[in-house]
Every structure is written in C-alpha cells, then in structure tokens.
C-alpha cells in the first residue's frame, strides 16, 4: 500500500494492488519526513482498466475471461484498489506521495478506540472493520458479546465499542435516531441492558409496551445474564399514578393541559378554585357544584331551589352551591369551569389519580430500571408530573448539599424514551417538553441524563437536540431527517450519503468523547422484545389451536347426521359448557371438512359427517 496522487495535510489517496479497502478502517502512513500518521478510510474504490468489460466499446463476455484464465491470465488480478484516507490529526506538511502505508497494531489505536474498561462502560457493539487489529487485542476485550450477521449469531471478531458512562458527566445526554426497522429499538434495548448491568437508576417511558426484559432471546443458548430482578414494568393507572393531594396548582394545570390544551381563562379557574391539600373528590365536587349553580343562572333562582328543597340534605347542598356561586361566578366563567371539569374527569377515568409514584421512587433508590407503560397521551400527562417530581427531588438533595442543610437522599438517574418527538415536539409547547428542556440544559449539574430515541429527529425540539452530546444514528431514509442529522452531528457528507443504505443494526456513533464518528454494529441483545412474534404467524397458530380444540370435542361423537346437529349442540353444551347454534356448528363442521380433518358423505337420509379413515 502506497500513498498516491496529490496529497494534502488532511487527506490522501492510498492505492494497493493486493488489498481491498474497507470504509472506516484505520491505516498508518509512514511518511519519511514526519512521524507515523493515523488515518481512517472514508471512501473505498476499486478499478480495473479492462473492466467494465469494455475495451474500445466492446463488451467482453465471461467465457472469454474464463478462457484467458485457463491460459494463465486472470483479469481480476489487474484490479487496483484505491481509498481516500482522512487523517485523524492534521499533518504538519502534506504527506509525501509514495509513502508506505500499513495496517496499525492494536496498541497503536487502543487509545482512540477504547476509552474505558469493560466494567465502567456500556458495551454496545463492535467497531466495524477492525477485525485485523482485534487479533492482537487484550484478552479483557475479547468474547464480550455476539453479533447478528445475515440472520446468524456470530462471536465477536472486532474491537468492542464501549461507551464511557462516566463521560456523561461532561458530555451529557444521548440521542438515538433511525427509521423503523433500522435497529433503533434494538439499539435502545442493548443500551438499557447495559444500564441494568451497571445498576444505574433509570426511568423508561414506553408507549409501545415493548421494553420487557424477562425473556432471554431464543438465539442465546447459554444463560448469560438475567434481568428479572433488575427492572420493573409499571402501568399508569394500574400500578402507578399521581397522588392528587401532593399536587400544586401548577402541577395540576400541567396535567390538565396535557389532557387537552388550557385557555388562559381555564388556567385562571384552576388558580382560583384549587386549594392546597384538595383531594380529587373535593376539587371535583367544587367544580361540579359551581357548574350546577351556574346552570341555574342567578342567586334568586338558586334561592328558590333552596326553598323548594324536599329535605334538609338537599337544601344544605343548594345553600353550599349558592355560596360558591356568589364567591366565584364573577371570576370563573361557566364554560371554563366546564372545560376544567371534563378534563379532570378524563384524567380520572384514565386512573391517573388512583395511585402514586412511591413504587417508582423505591425502584430508583434501589438502582433499578423502571419501565412506565401507557398510551402516548397518558404518558405525556404522567411523565410531566413524574419527571418534575423526580427531578426536583434530586435537585433538592443536591442543592441541600451545597447549602449544607439536610435533605433525603435521591440518586442520580437516567430518563429514556422512545418516540421522544411526542414528548418534546418542535414548534409548539407541550407540558412534558418544558421539563425535558430543563433537564437537557441543567440536568448535568444534578446527574440527571436523557436518552431520547426518535425516528423523526426533525420533529424533536431543537434546543434539546443541541444538548445531545452523543448520537447513535441508524439507517435513515427521509431526506429532511438526513438534513437535520447533517446539521446536528459531525457526520461527513460521505457518511450522510450512506445513511439510507445502512444495514439493520449498523450505526454511526457521533460522540464528543471520541471526537469523531465511529461506525459500529450493535451487539445481539440478550433479551427479546415481547412483540417479536409475527402477527400472521400468531393468526395461523391461533386458528390451528382452535381447530384442534374443536376436533377434540367432536371426534368421539362422529359419525353424525346433518339432521342431528341440534342434539349434538346440546350434548356439547352439557359436556364442555361451550354453546353452539346449529348454524354455527354446521359452519365449523364444514370448515373441518374443507381443512381435510373430517369427511362428509352423502347418504339416503342426507349428509353425514364422519371421521377420516
């Protein structure tokens, strides 16, 4: 390998007659006038002056090439390999053309490839095209994981990519971008597995109900790691919720706003009507009674309701309404009160107010990964409250340390969300966005970090995107997203051009710690998503199951005449408790005949179903 052509201080071309180059591999240039320089291949090309099988306009067919080969001449051997190599550090002078080029040894690249030890970092995958160097790698970096290649599990052959967790303190927050099917969710899963291995307290907002880590992936034979005790799935409304009594007026406004946007008048209504330590019911009642009073229209009309009240209870209730009416009618317009009421009802029906977040706090205290599941809308509502709450707990603790006062310990933690553009959208305000924005800007100080995944980086709030110091970029096809990625990362033009063609699981990692972009392959996940079963397979197996169940019921009752189905239906109902109408039963029997499980024959008395010989 030699340096060829015109060189600069940043880039050179390297040519070889024997060795093909691979993108992102490292080479050492031995310039006789400078010290050895390390460069990375950014473009790889091959060239054969006799192929594209076109010599003076002729197309060469394969048989002729074969014949030439038989005569001892292999045209492929005339191929020249050319690569464009970008130097990692600028050289003092342009490189001497003709300098020798060689592959680096592991020791020479160790410092730029591996920033931390296996124990202190997250082992996310392999740095691509480093297999040559990996041969001389220290034992501690070998056999850490498997990768998936062409649908097969392969042992690690390359240098591992170990993300330096501690550097998050200086370069906080991670973005995970990639279209659907690009391996983004898998990448996130691997990231979370590593966080669990490190026992990092983590909150995962999971609108897809997919972040379950109890199933070990079917392709892993030996048990490597068990995450059962390291994570907990909690559903909003079922396991966790908002404790209404703890809410401030601002919290409540955020929540209601998340249910549906609040007008200024509505905000005002909450400020006036909500009293600290209100319970859901006391607040709800107040709103309800005020609206009922307002529906009457005037104090006089309410007075007449009091007078015509049938019992003391009713009269008392109307007196209370009157009191509310007199104090609040002027300041709280009827429509706004109604608006607050139905929003509150909506949240109540979702079960948001029926539980608290105690379990989440305990989980975090114990260094667990807490997965919060719910629909996107519910999660938006709940996360606003939850993140505010947890972030401020952590903040209070840290601030108390500064002020040398005492506060309850609350650990640092990481917040992870998929579809993060729903939680922090660009262009319009949303309650969860303000807390995420605050954490993105100040979280570093308090040890609260974000991992935001999205398939639409363009739709994610720009202030937040700018704070993501490490970005994992999977295959992206949409031009506008590639544009965003180009603006927000240090990916080069060439790399951006490759984005639509990346294989599933291949990823560019643009990280401030590394100072450059690394091309890696995400390791095979240890656990598997609960959604991996194909819905069409599911359908098939479900039908099969049903058929078998039905066959088991009727097989002993065959043969049966088509005219005796009423009796058969009765008999089945008595034995199994399953009710079939005659039509229903006939339909099922016909299906069984179609599927070749039983036979149908014609007799002089009509049709008869019988078992197959």
């Amino acid at each position, binding site marked *: 390998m030699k340096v060829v052509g015109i060189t600069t201080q940043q880039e050179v071309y390297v040519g070889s007659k024997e060795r093909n180059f691979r993108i992102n591999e490292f080479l050492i240039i031995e310039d006789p006038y400078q010290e050895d320089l390390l460069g990375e291949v950014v473009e790889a090309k091959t060239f054969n002056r006799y192929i594209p099988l076109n010599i003076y306009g002729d197309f060469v067919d394969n*048989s002729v090439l074969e014949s*030439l080969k038989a005569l001892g001449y292999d045209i492929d051997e005339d191929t020249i390999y050319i690569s464009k190599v970008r130097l990692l550090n600028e050289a003092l002078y342009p490189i001497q053309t003709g300098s020798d080029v060689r592959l680096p040894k592991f020791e020479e690249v160790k410092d730029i490839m591996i920033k931390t030890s296996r124990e202190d970092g997250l082992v996310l995958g392999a740095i691509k095209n480093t297999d040559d160097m990996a041969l001389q790698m220290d034992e501690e970096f070998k056999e850490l994981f498997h990768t998936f290649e062409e649908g097969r599990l392969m042992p690690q052959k390359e240098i591992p990519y170990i993300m330096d967790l501690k550097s998050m303190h200086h370069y906080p927050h991670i973005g995970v971008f990639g279209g659907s099917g690009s391996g983004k969710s898998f990448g996130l899963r691997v990231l979370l597995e590593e966080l669990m291995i490190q026992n990092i307290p983590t909150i995962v907002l999971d609108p897809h109900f997919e972040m379950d880590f109890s199933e070990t992936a079917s392709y892993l034979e030996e048990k490597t790691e068990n995450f059962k005790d390291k994570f907990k799935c909690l559903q909003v409304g079922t396991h966790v919720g908002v404790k209404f009594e703890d809410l401030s007026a601002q919290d409540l406004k955020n929540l209601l706003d998340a249910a549906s946007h609040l007008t200024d008048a509505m905000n005002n209504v909450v400020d006036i009507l909500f009293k600290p330590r209100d319970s859901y019911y006391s607040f709800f009642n107040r709103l309800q009674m005020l609206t009922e009073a307002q529906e009457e229209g005037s104090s006089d009309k309410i007075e007449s309701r009091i007078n015509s009240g049938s019992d003391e209870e009713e009269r008392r209730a109307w007196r209370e309404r009157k009191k509310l009416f007199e104090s609040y009618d002027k300041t709280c317009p009827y429509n706004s009160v109604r608006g607050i009421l139905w929003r509150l009802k909506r949240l109540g029906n979702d079960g948001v107010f029926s539980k608290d977040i105690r379990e989440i706090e305990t989980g975090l205290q114990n260094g667990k990964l807490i997965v919060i599941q719910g629909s996107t809308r519910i999660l938006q509502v709940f996360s606003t409250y939850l993140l505010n709450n947890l972030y401020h707990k952590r903040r209070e603790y840290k601030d108390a340390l500064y002020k040398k006062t005492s506060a309850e310990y609350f650990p640092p933690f990481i917040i992870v969300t998929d579809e993060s553009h729903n939680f922090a959208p660009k262009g319009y305000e949303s309650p969860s966005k303000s807390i995420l924005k605050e954490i993105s800007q100040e979280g570093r100080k308090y040890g609260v970090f974000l991992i935001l995944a999205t398939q639409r980086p363009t739709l994610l709030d720009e202030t937040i995107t700018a704070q993501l110091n490490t970005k994992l970029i999977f295959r992206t096809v949409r031009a506008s997203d590639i544009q965003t990625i180009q603006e927000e990362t240090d990916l080069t033009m060439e790399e951006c051009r490759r984005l639509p063609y990346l294989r599933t699981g291949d990823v560019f990692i643009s990280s401030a710690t590394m100072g450059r972009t690394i091309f890696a392959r995400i390791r095979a996940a240890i656990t598997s998503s609960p959604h991996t079963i194909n819905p069409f397979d599911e359908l098939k197996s479900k039908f099969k199951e049903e058929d078998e169940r039905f066959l088991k019921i009727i097989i002993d009752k065959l043969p049966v005449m088509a005219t005796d189905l009423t009796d058969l239906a009765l008999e089945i109902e008595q034995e199994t408790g399953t009710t079939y109408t005659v039509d229903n039963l006939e339909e099922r029997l016909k299906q069984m005949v179609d599927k070749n499980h039983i036979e149908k024959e014609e007799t002089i008395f009509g049709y008869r179903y019988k078992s197959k010989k």
Partner: protein
Amino acid sequence: MYSLSNQLKSKVTNLNDLLKEKYESILDLNREDLRKFINTHIGEIKKMDKLDNGHLALYESKGGIVGVDGSNNKIGGAYPHFVEAYQALAKSTTHKDQPLILADIYSPLYPEQEESPLEEEERVIEDKRNIKLSTIEVEAALASIERFKPYAILMDGGLIRYNIYAADKWIELRQRCEEEGIILVGVIKDIKTSIIGDTMKKINPSIDECFYDRELLFGQLDYGEMILIRDEVNKKEPEGYSSVFLRSSLAPSIIGMDIIDSQREYMEDMARLVFTLTPENSRGVPLWLDIVDKEVKISDEIMKALMERYMDRGIYERFFVSERDKRSL
C-alpha cells in the same frame, strides 16, 4: 446544428450511387452461390468449435500465449518539426507481471542516416515509421521467446509487412520459432486482400472491376465459420504464409489470420484459439490482443507529458509546439 454545404451533400450522394452501381452485382449475389463458389475455388468453409478449458490449460502448461503489438504517436507540426515515438509490447498470459516493452523515437530534425529532406518526404517518413515499428515489434517477439518460452505468439496485424520492413530480424524470428516449435501467427483486423475477387476475374474475364475480400465476405460467413484458403490462390504463399478468414464475433465483418507455412498443421487450432478468445459481441479481435494494444498505446497525454518532463521547455516550444496545439477554439 451543423451547417452542411450543399456541395458536400451532393458529392456524398454521388459516391453512394457510384458504389451502389459498382456493387450491384455483388449485392445481388445469392449467398448460397457465393459460398459454393468459395468452397470450390477458394477453400473449404468450416465450422469451428471453441477450445475447452482443458485444451487451453494445456497451452498454458506449454508456456502460454504471447501477444505482440506496437503503437506510435507523433507530437509537433509539419515536417520536419515533429517527434514520433514507437513502442512495442510482448505480453505473456502466464507472466503477466513482466511485460516486455521496447521503444524508439524518430525526428527528421536529427536523422540517424543522411537523407534528402525534399525527396518524397511523405513516403520516406511513412517507411521510416513502418521500419521502426516493425523492427521493435519483431525484437519484442524475439525477446519474448527468450524470456517466456511461449507455446504460440500472436502478432497484431498481417505477417507480410515484417518481410517488407524488418526482413533480417524477421527471418531470425521465423527460424527461432521453427527451431523451437513456437507457433507464429498474425491476426489481421482489416483484411486488405482480394483473393476471391481475383479468382472470380480469372474464371470469368468479363468482370473488370476489382473486388476486395472484405466487401465480398461481409456477412457471408456464420458466427464461428472459417475459410481455409488454399495455398495456390493465396498470394502470400510465395512469401511463406498460409492464411485463413474467419468470423470470430457476431459482428458481420471478417478477420484474417496468417501462419508460417511450415506450421500449417496448426492453422485450424490457432483459428479456434482466436475464435475462443474473441468476445461474442465485439469487433472480432481477440481480447488478449486488445489488452496488449491498450497497454502499449502511447496516448496524446503520455506523449505530451514525456516532452514536457524530459525536454527543455525552450527546445520543446521552439521545435515541436505547433500552431495547432495552441488553438483553443
């Protein structure tokens, strides 16, 4: 848009009509009749098969095939202000890393022998060119015998021109080949003979036009057919060559091949080798010769670079940069 002069248009139309008239009889000739004529009077039309890889491997084990070709290029203006460079290459299929290259240059400004510049300068220069080129080609072939010990040598072009322009060396090459049993053939892309036309004339004296084989044979052979020309009608026979015509690709044009007469027995095998090495959808030239040709070619850029790099700028400008080279329109 190009503007065509009317005069040019009518001249070309005229030429077209003349050709049509002259060749009417041929164009009307029945294909079967012509093929019958060839079979009886010229030589047998024979179908060839391609050589199989086993056969080729045998050639490889016997030393492989050497292709020889030459190239020339000229830089500068009109006589005598120019330089011509010549290059010949002998390349073996088995020793592909050791191409044998010979080179020479010529400029009338510094003739090696005394010559009178006024006397028929064009013809003299043409001769010079042919002599220089033929000589280094033959020398390259000779050297390749020494170095590669090949099974056969394929020369690019007919062999007869070596008799004319490099007689001494050529005789040496012939002898060496005969002694060492190396088959020597020439592959002719553009056949210039008129064997069939002349024979027709002899048989039917009423034909007074001269027809060339290239015209007559165009499209008349099937892909993979050859004509083994009988020595008595072959005009190269007195010089010691046997010849064959063949259609080696799907293009309708015909190529020729010469072999030294003492090796006549290998003629069919060599024709089959040429056929095997020629891509189906090509102009009919064996790929190996095309590869050699491409490698030996002295391009205008190389020529220019050569002059600019190795000649003083003053001398280069004074003698060899023509007005044409500076034209930019």
